[in-house]
């Protein structure tokens, strides 16, 4: 299955992560870059590419505070390729596009980063103005006017329908949050380190039914960096290279949260298996987006861990997804316990697990392949990462 030409992840790094980190988004990004370079055994002089999602977006600086240009300027990077863009499939487009650039020979070592300032934006809104001149345009124009401000509201539409169609219960969905908090207790960087019980979960205040407080991740300040490097550089690297076996995306015609009956993660997962020689049976571990717990349930179904509609029953009792279960997921606590790193935190955890370097959160078994999925609604990407 190994393809010797596949680009690899040579290093991962992350800034401090918290509900509020008193440091500018650019400096958090540079903290993460330094850690990733050290992890890979590279220097800034080796870097010839920069990539991010969604770039710097002035209408939503809390989500998108730092662009490629900011990083290139600050570090005087001598690059032959860079790309930061919003009209792409999901957070992992920063990594997927870097894979394509490395394959094309446009760059050999690309810093792919995701920086988010939603914690600071809540504390200091004046520094992160949300500007919509002449009103809401585009995909949100038919959603925000109904006070559907949060992805919690958008995801809840799919959750309520799933509960209705398949008899999914809060007790089943709650296993995702309970698993996240149990794993987060082992992670020194997690924001929430106290486990919760099913009673805690069922008693939590509702945010947007059927999603309660524990079904939602926490707005955070964070930057995470993944360095994507050409396959032929692997022998010179300090650390164990993790091969990027496949990167998949799919969007069947509707770029909205509210029109599709089937969110994009389902066709994305089907595409992932088309692009890889692996099947779900070859995968040891999953890092599956839990910005909202129900998105994880969707990935579980989409990837084929169970038939569509059976996600609730798959989660029953929580044993399968536990760190000693048949398919451990979100082993660092996911975003529910470890904060909204916006999908890049799963890649960092995947790399650390596959290398056997995950410290307190290390799963005690030999693992070769990890699947990671990110996004929600029309945003969707998935990757297979492998240690050969």
């Amino acid at each position: 299955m190994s393809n010797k030409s596949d680009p690899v992840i040579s290093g991962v790094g992350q800034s401090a992560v918290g509900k509020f980190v008193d440091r500018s988004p650019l400096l958090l990004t540079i903290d993460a870059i330094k850690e990733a370079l050290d992890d890979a055994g590279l220097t800034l002089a080796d870097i010839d590419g920069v990539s991010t999602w969604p770039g710097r977006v002035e209408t939503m600086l809390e989500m998108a505070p730092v662009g490629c240009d900011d990083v290139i300027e600050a570090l005087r990077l001598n690059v032959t390729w860079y790309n930061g863009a919003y009209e792409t499939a999901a957070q992992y487009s920063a990594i997927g596009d870097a894979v394509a650039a490395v394959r094309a020979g446009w760059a050999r070592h690309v810093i792919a980063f995701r920086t988010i300032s939603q914690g600071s934006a809540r504390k200091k809104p004046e520094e992160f103005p949300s500007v919509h001149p002449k009103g809401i345009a585009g995909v949100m124009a038919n959603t925000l006017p109904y006070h559907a401000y949060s992805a919690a509201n958008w995801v809840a539409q799919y959750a309520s329908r799933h509960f209705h169609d398949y008899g999914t219960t809060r007790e089943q969905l709650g296993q995702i949050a309970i698993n996240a908090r149990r794993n987060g207790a082992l992670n020194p960087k997690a924001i929430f380190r106290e486990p919760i019980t099913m009673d805690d979960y069922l008693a939590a205040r509702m945010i947007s039914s059927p999603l309660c407080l524990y079904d939602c991740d926490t707005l955070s300040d964070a930057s995470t960096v993944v360095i994507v490097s050409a396959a032929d550089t692997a022998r010179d690297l300090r650390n164990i290279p993790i091969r990027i076996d496949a990167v998949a995306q799919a969007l069947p015609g509707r770029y909205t949260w509210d029109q599709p009956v089937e969110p994009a993660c389902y066709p994305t997962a089907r595409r992932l298996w088309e692009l890889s020689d692996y099947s779900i049976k070859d995968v040891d571990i999953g890092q599956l987006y839990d910005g909202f717990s129900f998105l994880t349930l969707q990935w579980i179904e989409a990837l084929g861990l169970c038939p569509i509609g059976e996600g609730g029953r798959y989660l029953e009792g929580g044993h399968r997804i536990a760190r000693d279960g048949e398919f451990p997921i979100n082993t660092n606590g996911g975003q529910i316990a470890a904060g909204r790193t916006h999908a890049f935190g799963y890649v960092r955890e995947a790399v650390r697990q596959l290398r056997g370097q995950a410290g307190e959160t290390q799963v005690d078994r030999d693992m070769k392949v990890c699947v990671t999925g990110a996004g929600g609604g029309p945003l969707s990407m998935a990757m297979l990462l492998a240690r050969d």
Partner: protein
Amino acid sequence: MATRPRPRLTPLNRFYWEAGREGVLKIMQCRECGTWIHPAAPICPSCLSENVAPQPVEGTGGIYSITVNYQAWAPGLDVPYAIARVALDGVDGVLLTTNIVGDGAVEAAIGDRVQVCFEEQDGIWFPLFTRAQEDKR
């Protein structure tokens, strides 16, 4: 209730947001093949005809999915309130995100019958829905 965020009016979508002035819901439709097009677009996604026009619709439908929001995301927001996706009668392939308002709104459930009503704010008529009489519990 808090002010609703204002959609940006364009030559293409203005009919949709102003239709409530006459108390009628309108959706863009292809005049050639009948495909409903929402949000409005200048071309039919089925037959690529540019002969598309706003069409009055019944304004009745059923709740396809629903959530009751309890979180006060903004100052002045009265919670709880219901956000639903409504499948309109006779308008295939369209789901309208909207608020269910009026009696029993937060008790509404998937499958409940609903009827459009309008709430005007600064020249925009937001299509909202109330539960149809026979469905009120």
